């Protein structure tokens, strides 16, 4: 997604090394993706579902 769009950034975080982030984002399983600090995507999801949820997070923010 980050390669596709200049508006997307992607941080891959090794959870066990950063317990503060795990605590902050309530990570109890992986993979877990946090979109714009507030939307959670749990587990590995089909691509279209994942992209739709992530993009949807921005429109939710705008309203």
């Amino acid at each position, binding site marked *: 997604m980050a390669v596709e769009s200049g508006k997307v950034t992607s941080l891959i975080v090794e959870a*066990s090394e950063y317990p503060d982030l795990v605590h902050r984002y309530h990570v109890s399983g992986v993979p877990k993706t946090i979109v*714009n600090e507030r939307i959670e995507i749990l587990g590995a999801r089909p691509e*279209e579902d994942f992209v739709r949820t992530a993009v949807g997070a921005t429109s939710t923010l705008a309203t």
Partner: protein
Amino acid sequence: MAILSQSDATKVREMLGGMSQPVRLVFFTQSLNCDTCEPTGQILNELAALSDLITLEEHNFLLERDDAAGYGIGRVPAIAVLGAEDHGIRFFGIPSGYEFMSLIDAILLVSNGDSGLAPESRALLAGLESPIALQVFVTPT
């Protein structure tokens, strides 16, 4: 002693043969209070040796905080994967196990400038008006 086995190195070299453009790995590290910094540096050095198109730049996080901040990096070990442009792809923590494959995937994507996403996904992203910041939490196993 090498972290990558001979057979893994051969496979990785083959995968990296799919790169078309150079990629810079900008690596921020520190020697104190960072157990995974040194092995991360070793993995990256071994990886960079497997392709002429990969350049590894090592920076001292404590001495080059401004540079780190410029890349949006506030903790170590951290790797920025940069191609002809900066797509905002960063790795935090040691890239071992599954994360190592994710790093190789990221290198290939950045090098070739093609996300490989389905047309529907590309269309959705083309219409983006606001930024999306993804933080993907993973573990090495």
